[in-house]
């Protein structure tokens, strides 16, 4: 499991873990039944306090994304819930805010940014891994 901690990011470390594991699950890089590293192993790999990992796992368990088998570790839940619409909006808004700020600095008006967005979207072709993740937001619309 590839996770990294960025300390200059203002986000608390446990939350960075939660976000990245959610992302791994949502993008299908971790599937149902996959085992997560033990608290000890992940703490040692990332060089963080074990409590930070415990807290992240607890949060993921509460969210129904993972489950703990007594004495046998943590696993990705059978039907992991993909990102909710609100979560998708939150994630994208963060990126979009940065994009808008940068565009303003460069004197690029919104119409040109949107046109460029379309242009880049077609240049990238169809998204390969997005199937599982696209269903839920549509259901909610």
């Amino acid at each position, binding site marked *: 499991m590839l996770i990294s*901690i960025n*300390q*200059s990011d*203002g*986000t*608390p*470390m446990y939350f960075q873990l939660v976000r990245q594991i959610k992302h791994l699950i949502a993008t299908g890089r971790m599937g149902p039944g996959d085992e997560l590293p033990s*608290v*000890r192993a992940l*703490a*040692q790999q990332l*060089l*963080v*306090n*074990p*409590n930070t990992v415990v807290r992240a796992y607890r949060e993921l368990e509460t969210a129904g994304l993972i489950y703990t088998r007594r004495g046998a570790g943590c696993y990705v839940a059978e039907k992991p819930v993909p990102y909710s619409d609100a979560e998708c909006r939150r994630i994208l808004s963060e990126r979009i805010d940065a994009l808008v700020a940068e565009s303003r600095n460069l004197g690029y008006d919104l119409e040109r940014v949107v046109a460029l967005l379309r242009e880049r979207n077609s240049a990238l072709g169809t998204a390969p891994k997005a199937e599982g993740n696209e269903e839920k937001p549509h259901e909610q619309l």
Partner: protein
Amino acid sequence: MSNCESDAVIEVSGLSRSFGRKEALRDVSLRVKRGQVFGLVGENGAGKTTLIQHLLGAYQAKTGSVRVFGINPVYDPTAVLGRIGYLSEDRDLPRWMRVRELMRYTQAFYPNWDPAFAEKLREEFSLPADAKIGTLSRGELARAGLLAALAHRPELLLLDEPSSGLDAVARQHILAAVVRTVAEEGRTVVFSSHLLEEVERVADHVAMIHEGRVVLDMGMDEVKARHRKFILRAKEAGRALPKLPGVIHAVGDGREWSVVCEGEEGAFVHAAQAAGCEVIESAVPTLEAIFVARATA
């Protein structure tokens, strides 16, 4: 002197210490609980080492009291030191010994020394058994010191500036040992450092010492939750920063300010806006930023 098994491994209260006219510690009170990773931060000369020396019983408390495992370390040093693994800042190991000899020599002091574990650590730390201590690199020397501090599986690991003067790889070894000590064995770790990113990563409690005084003493989560850093922009330039609640430290050029403060975000933002400032940015500061703010306040 009872060997009290409360949840406090270390209890320091009202400790003051002067060297000549220099006040090294002033009314220091701290409590380290079992299983905690306790980070002691402060600039060089802030009093961290003096405090650690009191915990080891090297200095006697003249004002205030020091208890480690409920015992005064000055009165019963063997009872205390046998349960502590200590890595000193200057890693004063006998230079003429070979690594193997250092292991045997250190073993003699600790009834709980685990030779198999010591050997495992030696291999993990890639320390050649035949190498003379005097010929080791700084990183190897730190690892040798760490081996000597860990191999009796101490209840309390006390590291004085374990990362000072080490490169990134050697620092990772030290951090990994700290994490493993708590993760695998549930032991208590106290370490002093001026490298705040390290403390932020592994400590769950932090105490800041500045000019001999404790200026902050709280859980890492609480530290992060209670402080915020704002970038403010005044509507009119060239004025002083208006009076705002909870400001610890502010720097600015009369138009924009970077402010570290303690307290609730909403209340601060309201006050700033009411005072004619726009809040451009609001973020959780790094431990480093909090420390600098508190030390220069």
